[in-house]
């Protein structure tokens, strides 16, 4: 087992998410039976069990469910970033995402803050980041 953080791996099952990121879109897996949105991708809907799933672009908006400011980096590759705010964001479309909050001072992130989702390059992948909106 590695003692270092895994590099992000875009498994084939989740490729549409990363292709969406390349295209500037936030995509989630949508159940055609019940309309449930889910991330990460599965073979069936975890809400109803339906197997008819598609990928759909959703509005890249959400709300900060919670956050922290990391002051001690887990690995050397994050050492230059501290202190960095990480948030859990509930997308308006349903699923919850984790990512850095950028575009505001670290001490101005709040629970309930509306944010937009954008993608930025990190470790060879585009990863979700959040920026405050409407304030």
């Amino acid at each position, binding site marked *: 087992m*590695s003692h270092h953080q*895994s590099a992000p791996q875009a498994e084939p099952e989740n490729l549409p998410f990363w292709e969406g990121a390349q295209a500037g879109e936030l995509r989630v897996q949508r159940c055609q039976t019940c309309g449930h949105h889910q991330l*990460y991708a599965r073979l069936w809907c975890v809400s109803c069990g339906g197997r008819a799933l598609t990928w759909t672009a959703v509005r890249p908006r959400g709300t900060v*469910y919670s956050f922290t400011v990391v002051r001690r*980096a887990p690995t050397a590759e994050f050492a230059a970033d501290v202190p960095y705010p*990480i948030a*859990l964001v509930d997308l308006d479309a349903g699923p919850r995402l984790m990512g850095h909050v950028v575009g505001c001072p670290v001490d101005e992130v709040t629970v309930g803050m509306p944010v937009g989702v954008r993608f930025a390059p990190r470790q060879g*992948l585009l990863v979700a980041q959040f920026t405050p909106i409407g304030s």
Partner: protein
Amino acid sequence: MSSFLDHCAIVGVGETAVGKVPDRTSIQLHAEAIRAALDDAGLRLRDVDGLVTAGSRVSPVLYHADVVAEYLGHHPRHVLTVNAGGSTSVAAIEHAAAMIGAGVCEVVVVAKADNLATGLGRDATVASMATIGHPAYEGPAGPTIPAMYAMVARRYIHEYGADVTDFALVAEIDREHARRHPAAQFRAPLTAQDVLGSRLVADPLRLLDCAPVSDGGGAVVLASAARARDLPKPPIRITGVGEHHGYEHLTQAGDLTVTGAAVSGPAAFRAAGLTPAEIDVAMIYDAFSFIQCMQLEDLGFCPKGGGGAFVREGNTRLSGRLPVNTHGGVLSFGHPGKPTGLFLVSEAVRQLRGEAADRQVAGAETALVHMEGGILASHGTLILAGDR
């Protein structure tokens, strides 16, 4: 109501030294913990027909329990490696009880040990634990384990007005208890003010809100009720058990302010036919100070959102209504990883036997042990009863 739990008892507990144990490997710590627990039970290695272990982060092997059996030079008929994170001990003890209840085994040892502090080191341990995040959707954000717990704490504060000074008090009370335990890793005085003055690791959690990284091991011996009757120590019965496994990745959890203890706890109480008010002493896994408050609530010892007040009112102190973590808790007794849950079990057993010396809860007859794994993802609750 009859249960598979009726057919077995905990008959032995043991630990190695906990803290920094530089002269011992993970497998040596396993062997020593097993020896200590068997000595406590008055049993010999050849009596053991079931062995359950949970691997080693420092010295990973494919079939861990089989490696331990080989090292011991004893080969029980049932040998199994399991893993449910920090709640592994409840799952493993439940499994052992079921194997005994089914008549497959008569004496089962559950053993766990690791030397994270000296074998891996603090930084490498922190780095290895950061891999718990989903490799594509979470890992790239660089979430440390404290960061993920911190997001739970932040939401708990937001919804319930929980107070970091109460979290700090959990650490103070754990330390007060550890000062009465000769084997605890941290025994120097510690106050809530010290905790609040330590540096922020991941807001709102400070260094002393977080468990240490330790070396050490523990083992618990279960035996059939018939076998238990002939052993020197009074058997400790398991009267209730409950589990809940809600998610693995934090982004897949729903409401982070209510833990799986709200399911595993009531299940254990139902099985035992007891209510929270009837518990004399509790061991509650607190790798981070605030989760003791949340789990006290979810287990039903106080109303939701009242965990901080419950601690502040002195209930969890040795002199209180429900002494909690009389060995010092995860925060002060030590945290070698998966063995930590077994330390909760062994302390509960010692309390129920009346062996807890300076930290004995007078007349303790019922104990609750609760532990969690991952980021509050998996939960296990045991209710134990003495025969005194």
